[in-house]
């Protein structure tokens, strides 16, 4: 490939590639994101190739490996254009049928279409599926269309045009002004206005400045950043290059979580291709602007997602947070001005400059513009990655997009914002999800984790679980965080074991207050959210554990026991066969006797009983 040496070169290339893409009559895109890969989606690709070759169709059908489409619950996914027919849970053995019916005859394979768990309706077109229909996929939308390992795909779909426009028509300060006008707020969690951060860095004295992508995504169950980097790395890179131009940075770092090998691979390839095409390096697109970016890998600590700890890690020091009166935007890497933004924040930049700040600001609400990606997980029917305008209600997210609670159970709480987010009860389902509303209620946006819990979740156990995660991940510098979380964990553990005393609730509240108030960084300051929010909204449940030594949700093992309803049992013996400790005694054919001292309360019999004859108390 010849290096692009002017903006006209880029425009011409885009037109050529778009035209060539238009000529693709039949296109199959296959999700090869980490989630679908776990279901061996690479074998589906191979199966398609084999089948198309066998039928001499390889030339007529374009096959693309793409990043994550988002609907992970239904993976592996295949989308066929034209028609945008979405096939779910595809297996290699389904491929001949898909080729025969859909690619040759233009029919759909009914059994592979998404079926609504409630009502049973099937949907052929991807955009009609409720999961997708209620979304606004500004950033994720391209994931299903392009091969992340091909810069040509990205350019064909209009990629790098925002960069071209910026370099041709805008001064650096105009770019900063545009980002400010868009009202974009940092997607890493704190929601700080990106434009103001950029302004600070761009106006800071000194020639040497840096731009950094924070891709140290560590929240359990959250994979927004991973999916963007795996599925559309050039989008993030384009944002970074534009930012570097706006702030006068010559070097950029992409700080990537060590546990993301596919993201690293795709990102490195993207950097190489961008360099080859003259979009990175010396004299980008023939202009006087030069910029280089490299990847840096984290060493596996959750806390390095915090800005000052991340800077320390890039510098080669231990990734621990530093004093908060030092603003990274002014004194970051090596003491030089450094603009550090989350993956998703950078990904928004090309969109804002393509279509203008006013258009962008029209999405969402006044103080919370644009869209946000959430990883919707837990007890919902449709788990996956979703993208909605900020201000969308929890109800729309959980019930319209998420399809409601699994197994017809009752909604109990949703935790937003990752491990240090708060748990919000049913009465807030109409809450518009944005930075400010969530904070007001004692939770937070975080980077966009959303864990839905049903009636079978015990909120004491939930708080205990998150304290366990956070105590391991506290760097340990501040006593308030290191010991505060640890002691909260100890108290919660005691309550779950039925050893708690009522006066410990007050102590728990004091510890939560101190951890929040006295700690240095965001991790410590927010760590107590799961405790404070569950105490606030689910206090009765704590009291049941403390006063009555009872776990209402039937989760805390020390406080529950199983009983067998002799009437309902028909003596099928299934429970006896499965019980790992042989606590269900008696002859087959008649109801067994549950030997309580032997029972380890694993719950296997409870879940396995076809007649619901086993109860938890």
């Amino acid at each position: 490939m010849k290096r692009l040496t002017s903006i006209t070169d880029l425009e011409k290339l885009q037109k050529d590639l778009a035209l060539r893409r238009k000529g693709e009559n039949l296109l199959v895109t296959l999700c090869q994101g980490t989630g679908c890969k776990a279901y061996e989606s690479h074998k589906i690709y191979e199966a398609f190739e084999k089948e198309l070759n066998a039928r001499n169709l390889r030339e007529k059908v374009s096959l693309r490996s793409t990043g994550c489409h988002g609907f992970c619950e239904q993976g592996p996914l295949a989308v066929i254009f034209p028609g945008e027919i979405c096939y779910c849970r595809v297996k290699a053995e389904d491929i001949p049928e898909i080729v025969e019916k859909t690619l040759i005859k233009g029919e759909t394979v009914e059994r592979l279409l998404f079926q609504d768990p409630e009502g049973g309706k099937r949907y052929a077109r991807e955009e009609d599926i409720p999961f997708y229909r209620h979304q606004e996929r500004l950033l994720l939308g391209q994931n299903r269309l392009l091969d992340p390992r091909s810069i040509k795909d990205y350019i064909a779909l209009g990629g790098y045009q925002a960069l071209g426009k910026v370099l041709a028509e805008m001064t650096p300060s105009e770019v900063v002004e545009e980002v400010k006008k868009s009202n974009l707020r940092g997607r890493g969690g704190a929601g700080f206005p990106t434009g103001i951060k950029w302004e600070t860095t761009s106006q800071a004295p000194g020639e040497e400045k840096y731009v950094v992508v924070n891709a140290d995504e560590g929240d359990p169950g959250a994979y927004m950043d991973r999916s963007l980097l795996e599925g559309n790395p050039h989008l993030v890179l384009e944002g970074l290059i534009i930012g570097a131009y706006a702030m006068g940075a010559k070097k950029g770092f992409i700080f990537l979580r060590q546990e993301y090998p596919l993201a690293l691979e795709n990102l490195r390839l993207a950097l190489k291709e961008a360099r080859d095409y003259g979009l990175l390096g010396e004299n980008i697109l023939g202009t006087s602007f030069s910029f280089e970016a490299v990847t840096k890998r984290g060493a596996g600590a959750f806390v390095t997602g915090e800005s000052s700890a991340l800077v320390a890690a890039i510098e080669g020091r231990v990734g621990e947070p530093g004093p908060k009166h030092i603003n990274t935007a002014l004194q970051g890497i090596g003491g030089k001005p450094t603009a550090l933004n989350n993956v998703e924040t950078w990904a928004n930049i090309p969109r804002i400059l393509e279509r203008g700040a006013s258009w962008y600001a029209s999405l969402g609400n006044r103080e919370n513009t644009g869209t946000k990606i959430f990883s919707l997980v837990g007890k919902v029917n449709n788990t996956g990655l979703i993208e909605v305008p900020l201000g969308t209600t929890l109800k729309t997210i959980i019930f319209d997009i998420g399809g409601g609670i699994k197994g017809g159970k009752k909604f109990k709480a949703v935790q937003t914002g990752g491990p240090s987010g708060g748990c919000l009860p049913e009465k807030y389902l109409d809450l518009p999800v944005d930075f400010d509303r969530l904070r007001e209620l004692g939770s937070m946006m975080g980077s966009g984790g959303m864990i839905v819990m049903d009636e079978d979740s015990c909120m004491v156990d939930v708080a205990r679980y998150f304290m366990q995660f956070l105590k391991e991940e506290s760097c340990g510098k501040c006593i308030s965080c290191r010991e505060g979380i640890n002691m909260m964990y100890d108290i919660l553990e005691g309550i779950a074991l039925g050893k708690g005393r009522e006066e410990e609730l007050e102590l728990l509240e004091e510890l939560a207050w101190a951890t929040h108030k006295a700690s240095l960084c965001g991790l410590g300051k927010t760590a107590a959210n799961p405790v404070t929010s569950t105490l606030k909204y689910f206090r009765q449940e704590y009291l049941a554990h403390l006063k009555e030594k009872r776990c209402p949700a039937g989760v805390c093992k020390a406080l529950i026991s199983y009983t067998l309803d002799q009437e309902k049992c028909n003596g099928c013996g299934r429970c006896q066969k499965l019980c790992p400790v042989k606590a269900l005694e008696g002859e087959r054919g008649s109801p067994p006797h549950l030997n309580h001292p032997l029972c380890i309360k694993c719950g296997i019999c409870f879940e396995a009983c076809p007649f619901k004859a086993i109860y938890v108390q």
Partner: protein
Amino acid sequence: MINLTIDGKNYKGEKGENLLQVGLNNGFDIPHLCYHENLSPYGGCRLCLIEVTRGERTTLTTSCTYPGEEGLQVKTSTPQVLKARRLMMEIILALAPSSSHIQSLAGKMGVERTPFNYQKEGEGCIKCGLCVRACEELVGAGVLTFSHKGPQRKVEPPFGEEPKNCIGCGTCVYVCPAGCLTMEDTPQERKIDRWKRRMEMKTCQKCHQPYMPTPQIEYILKGPPDPPPEKWLSCCPICRRKG
């Protein structure tokens, strides 16, 4: 010089000097454990919390890590400051229940007992890192480090092995506020058990008493730009004074 107010009164300090030092210089009794004026501030014990107002923003912060600047308004004993300090002290007291220094500081702060129970393998260390910084910044030996994270965090020589670069000077023992470090001298050797370090003692040529670990003498001789003559180190300070 800069002007700032502490608890409503005007004071002067050096620009960039940390607020804990400014406060201490002006007679404010701000409790602290991980701070030492000759070492870089760390902000780990969270006892020296104060409220700082800069412009329109008020934050609760550790005074030892906050640099002084013109116009700051500092409050050292608001209800929130006192409550946070009390809770920190209660936690620290649970970590190091037998340290007399910590007991007396707690007493001064009105903390007599701790509601927390912490009988784990903390061995009395509060992880304030004074020993780590003293060894690195004052002694220059740098044999101590923090390892692990969260509650497992501890101070130890790399890999928990005997630190061969430790010169046995005892500075770590001297600065430790928790009293969890001990140093023992026998006629033959000096022992710092916590670091698993044992060193041979140099005997005074005149009185034949052990007086300094051999590695420390070697360190001094090759250390500073202008080391003392070897002969000067051949006897103990007492005999040296006798001449």
